[in-house]
């Protein structure tokens, strides 16, 4: 699933940035790395850019760039969105009904099942305390 296909209100987890080079590097530098979780906040009209929230900050990007980010839709869970919950119920059901096989996963990296701590982002294999690394 591409980030560009999501509608406002849907939460996602980044699986992979599909390209390298300038665009891919920019997306990754801005925090769209595998395991990062976020939410589509709004879309500009006539298929203009989209606004996403990645934890503490918001990004805007064109749909062209958003098509390069592979994501997985997350079930609605964030408590601070409680006021909007009734609206999102449908989206949640839709996600839960999807066949598991169609949820693309990437074996190598960034494939952590649970959420880590209280934070929105989850990082996989190297998600350890850096102070232990040296």
């Amino acid at each position, binding site marked *: 699933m591409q980030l560009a296909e999501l509608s406002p209100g849907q939460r996602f987890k980044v699986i*992979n*940035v599909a*390209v*390298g*080079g*300038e*665009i*891919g*590097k*920019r*997306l*990754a*530098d*801005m*925090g769209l*790395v*595998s*395991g*990062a979780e976020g939410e589509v906040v*709004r879309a*500009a*009209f*006539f*298929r*203009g*850019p989209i*606004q996403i*929230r*990645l*934890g*503490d*900050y*918001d*990004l*805007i*990007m*064109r749909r062209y*760039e958003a098509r390069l980010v592979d994501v997985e839709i997350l079930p609605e869970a*964030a*408590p*601070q969105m409680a006021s909007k919950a009734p609206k999102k119920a449908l989206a949640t059901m839709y996600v839960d009904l999807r066949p598991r096989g169609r949820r693309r996963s990437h*074996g*190598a*990296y960034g494939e952590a099942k649970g959420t*880590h701590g*209280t*934070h*929105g*982002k989850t*990082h*996989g*294999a*190297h*998600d*350890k*305390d*850096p*102070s232990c*690394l*040296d």
Partner: protein
Amino acid sequence: MQDRAVLTIALAGNPNSGKTSVFNAITGAHHKVGNYPGVTVEKREGKIEFRDREIRIVDLPGTYSLTAYSLDEVVARDFLLNEKPDIVIDIIDSTNLERNLYLLLQLIELEIPVVAALNMADEAKEKGIVINHGILSKTLGVPMVPTVGSRGEGVEELLEVAISTYEAGSKPRMPSYGEDIEAHIASLVALLKEDSAFVAAYSPRWIAIKLIEKDSDAKKRISGHIREAEILAALEDTWRWIALHYRKDPEILISEQRYGYIHGAVAEAVHRTRQRGIPLTEQIDNVVMHPFISLPLFFLVIWAIFRLTFAIGEYPMAWLEGLFGALARYVQNSPLPNGIRDFLVNAVIHGVGGVLSFVPLIVILFFCISFLEDTGYIARAAFLTDHFLHAIGLHGQSFMPLMLGFGCSVPAIMATRTLKSPKERIATILAIPFISCGGKLPIYVLLAGTFFPNHASTVVMLVYATGVVLSILSTYFLRRTVLKGQSMPFVMELPPYRMPTLKGVLWHVWEKTWSYVRKAGTIILAVSVLMWVITSYPKAKGIENYEMQVRKEIIASHPELNESQIATNIEILLRQYQLEHSIAGSIGKIVEPIIAPIGFNWKIGVALLPGLTAKELVVSTLGVLYGTAVNDENEADSSLRQALRDSPDWSPRVALALLIFILVMPPCFSSLAVIRAEAGDKWMAFQVAYSLALAWVLSFLTSMAGHLLGLG
């Protein structure tokens, strides 16, 4: 190395991290603004005395990363690599730790002592983000000081920690990319270290990591390394290994590993007393970005800026005009020799007045723009308008400069500074002159009113509309030819709304105004002087005989006139005579064969010349060239209209062609000077050649169409 005479501190940080406010808090008023060599990126630099040391503070452009892709990032890293500051202070937005620490990791890798300012500490506290900066600092091996830049809190401690870090010579801990990748980095580093000259210039580890990231600049820097071939082979090997094991592009993998490392550090040192969310910003955005409200609100904002700038700007402009008028009268009546007096009044005072007349516009406009930029609204405006502008090859941030072009091209071109992508910025700059500025309106009104008295407003509207269409078509064309190339990725931060500080906004206004006066003002002044010279010299021969001759003629044909009316009329005719015999007159006659196919004679050629200093002057030059005997000044306008209508040189067809020519021709010298300052000589020259050629072709076509339509 220790105790060098002057300590150089570089300030790095993300955009919107409050870097400028920290810089201002450190340097106070003692700083200057210049450019980084060869590029239009602004460079702020200040010198201070602190604890008996002289410290030079250099503000690097705000960046999110240090790739070779964006100009700002290249400028920042070139400074760090080539000028090797003694210390880097990284300004970190505490409310947005993870993404801000991403830049810190890259600064650490440069192996220059780094100190981090956990800025906006107050905002983080408000949001319930509790940072144990002791733990974070220990984990990352970088000293950290909480600061509130806008109030100057913690800034002194920051400087103290920076100096003691420098004196202790302590190096930060290198972030780890995980065992496997580290092994590859190590083998690259080993090869890089074999060239001792190279090790003296660069951090091998930094170069190794950048090479893995496919960084074009790092690759250039290893050319000539004694083991270059082996390094490149090892690099290929690393890329193959990464592709095999991670199935990812190496540059993406490195970013992911950095975020992974940061995430671990933040998990240790930060906890939240409240859930995430940006409540106030979200509440404002629910209105400001609402599907039905956002666009009307945006147009209202643009309209308000336009009105504020040009309506309020009129007053100080009128004061300046009055001041310079009084000064001119004073000099006129002084006992100085004629030639010097004329030079002072018509070249110097007129020129300086011309330069300063734009200052009120620039001050007000940049007050508005800086205010909106600091609140975070400019990024939202880009979000709203990007789709349409991107289709023609521009950027969401091109919209406001284009709208301002209806007022005056000078501040409009300067407003393109908010655009970061060089190609889209140049494209916007080149599109602005097609938008008819306020200075062109008097010519439109004169020509349309004279030759299309029943449809004057329709004709003027059509000329304006033609300009907008041309600006769109021209941009579309240029972005597919000379400005070809992928637009920069549109991935921008949408910062939370913040209340701008008056000090910050005023600083910004001062910097822009000063840079205009310094860079464009001098050229505008020089060209004004040049224009005066070519319209006043050489002094026409036989002017005394001519004067006596016309005096006789006037007295014979208008016996009712009194002495002062006769003098006025003679002066008009003498000015006409002088202009005809000046360099400008000769130029007009030289270019006549070129503009003749359009239907223009040499007088029109001459009138267009001062149009290059300011479009308003076309009307007054036509007034001189077609000036006739008048009884008082109020009659001047209607008599000029009558004279143009009666002249065999003119017809509605010629007028229409001239309207198009003036619409398309190169903008005034003030705008060209600003284009030069903002985009460089090359693009200014291009603008002149391109718009001259286009103006000729389009007015020729208009003229032909006029023939077919029977407009004379």
